[in-house]
């Protein structure tokens, strides 16, 4: 296209409205290697000791590696549950004949559009009755289940796009429907599995409210809880630079995954349920 407009005013406006994000994230990054006196705008000196929490367990962050491992286990469990259940459920919904199929499918779509945060009080009661309250297994099951309508819906979409001739050919050659799904169809939807898996992992990695409310005194601390503790100004040994550094440490894996898989994730963010 021709340039019948000058781009500088547009860039200027964009920069202006992006300023809060740019400033916040630059300061976040700067704060990890410098210290800033209270009341100053610019950092005064280099300070790498903000990173001491990595090997020093006496800071407010405690033992960061255990929390990191916990978060990894937490996010990975959610990812595994969401992937297996959505991969099987999505296939059944896409290709197999089920009683009340139409009804179930509309139900899943309503649940997908439905904001699951409103269910937290009901979920709290369910966990109380089943004895899963204050256990990490309970939180993992809840988080994974709340993502399921989305996961099944996405996987159904991917299965729908697989040409049914592939399936037909497999069945003609005498394979069972299960073998056809396992050996022929699953490899076809690998892109969907990767995208959904990454999304589930990132969502689990950043989760805060569910562990905070449904497992408040559990020893299985995830990074979001640790970060909230470190960032609480009411603490006696409050250190905001430490908060920034732990925050960057916490977000780095997310950024790495995002940079490498940006295109796969972009399709799925459009269907996300956040804000």
């Amino acid at each position, binding site marked *: 296209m021709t340039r019948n407009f000058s781009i500088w005013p547009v860039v200027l406006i964009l920069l202006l409205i992006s300023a809060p994000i740019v400033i*916040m994230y630059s300061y976040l990054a700067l704060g990890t290697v410098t210290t800033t006196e209270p009341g100053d705008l610019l950092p005064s000196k280099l300070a790498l000791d903000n990173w001491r929490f990595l090997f020093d367990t006496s800071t407010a962050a405690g033992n960061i590696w255990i929390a990191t491992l916990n978060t990894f286990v937490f996010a990975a469990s959610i990812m595994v549950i969401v992937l297996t259940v959505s991969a099987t459920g999505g296939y059944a919904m896409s290709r*197999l004949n089920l009683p009340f199929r139409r009804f179930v499918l509309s139900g899943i779509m309503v649940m997908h559009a439905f904001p699951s945060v409103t269910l937290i009080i*009901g979920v709290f009661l369910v966990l109380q009755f089943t004895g899963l309250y204050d256990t990490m297994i309970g939180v993992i*099951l809840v988080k994974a289940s709340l993502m399921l309508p989305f996961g099944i819906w996405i996987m159904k979409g991917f299965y729908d796009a697989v040409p049914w001739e592939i399936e037909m050919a497999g069945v003609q050659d005498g394979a069972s429907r299960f073998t056809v799904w396992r050996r022929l169809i699953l490899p076809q939807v690998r892109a969907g599995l990767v995208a959904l898996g990454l999304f589930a992992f990132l969502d689990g990695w950043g989760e805060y409210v569910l562990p905070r409310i449904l497992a408040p005194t559990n020893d299985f601390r995830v990074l979001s809880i640790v*970060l909230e503790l470190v960032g609480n100004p009411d603490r006696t040994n409050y250190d905001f630079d430490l908060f920034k550094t732990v*925050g960057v440490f916490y977000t780095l894996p*997310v950024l790495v995954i995002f940079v490498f898989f940006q295109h796969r994730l972009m399709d799925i963010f459009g269907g996300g349920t*956040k*804000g």
Partner: protein
Amino acid sequence: MRSRTSGLGLLLISPAMLLLAIFFFTPALLTGVFSFTNMSSSTGISGGAYVVTPNLLKALSARGMQPATIEALEEASYSVDADGLAAARAADVDPAFLDEIEARYAGRAYATDSDFLAALKDLPSRPRRIRDLKLAMEPFTKSVLNVRFATEELARTAIAERVAGISDDEMATLLSESYTGWVWTTENFGKLFAGHETWRIIANTIFYVATTLTLFNVTLGLFLAVTTFYLPKKLGAIFTVIWLLPRITPVVLYAIMWKWFTWDDGFVAVLAGELGLPSFNYMKGSVTSAWTIVIMVNGFIGASFGMILFSGALRSIPIQQLWASEVDGATRWQQVRYIILPQLRWPILFVTSYQTLSLLTSYQEIWLTTNGGPGSTTTVWALESFRTALFNYSGSLQYGLGAAMALLLVAVGLMLSIIYLRLFRFGELVTQPKIEF
């Protein structure tokens, strides 16, 4: 042709159905059921006991219960039994004295203080001081006051024993008032509609959803999508990534960064101070600034949703239309106004409806930033329901009332999602599977 049910299909779908039933359907049902109870952290969740407390008797007496009944309930009696002796031993009463009590009075009961006291004064090894004697009497007290009765039957017998000939009315009142567990009630909804805070919170919610949606999710989303579309590819990509950052950052980090940005010696306050503008805690200092921050915190996440969706829709507009308009001498603004916007009608409608629902029910960001303050000026419905039921500093959590508030949200959410599904003709997506044996 009706094809038969696939056994494999049932097997494959069952884990999903099970999890959805437990963690989606049951919670929705329980929200509905328990919104009709007065369940709270003081009643407990699994049921309660019957306890008659002095405070309860005072309240009942004020409400006109027979003074005779009240007196009878308040009065203590004494009986010398194994329980009482064990309690007395635990309370360090002189063992010799206790042995005498056991030998002389085991199994007897005394209706009043003075009777029991007189009986004890007959014993040779009684304590000299009257105060010690009273202390020794205490473990033998039999009273309905402050005793936990596990079932209604136990409470009924105990009360009937103390108050001979209590009327059925009074018994019923006593039993229902002394129950500490939760009971069925419709009071929650009455409370909600009577409270003046309710209307204010509803007004807050409408203001919050409408402003965030129009300013950020739709307008800013559109602006970002259109500008990054026209900018050179690399430059556009930079802004896309910048605006995706809030979405991919974990919510705790994002919220506390905003706190830092706006608090007393945070960036905005310091900058404003250096420029000679009023410098204060912008997040909590004034209602206007608090609302601005709340809307920005949510809007900066929401804008990227619109941006992604509109960008996708923009790229699917045939580029020839834009070329043709340029040949005719259209400016960029005319292109946007007459070619792009009309073709984005459906995505705009989709973003509007989808984000209405998600803004209506979002509370995480507000909870972690202003927490509804200053006062309750930025409290929205979802946040209030969450705080009522699950999280507040006083620690008295009202599950029933919170569930009633959530139920209204669930109802609105369900209604809107069904309307949207009709609106966007998702029905076409639920057609029969092609291949079936």
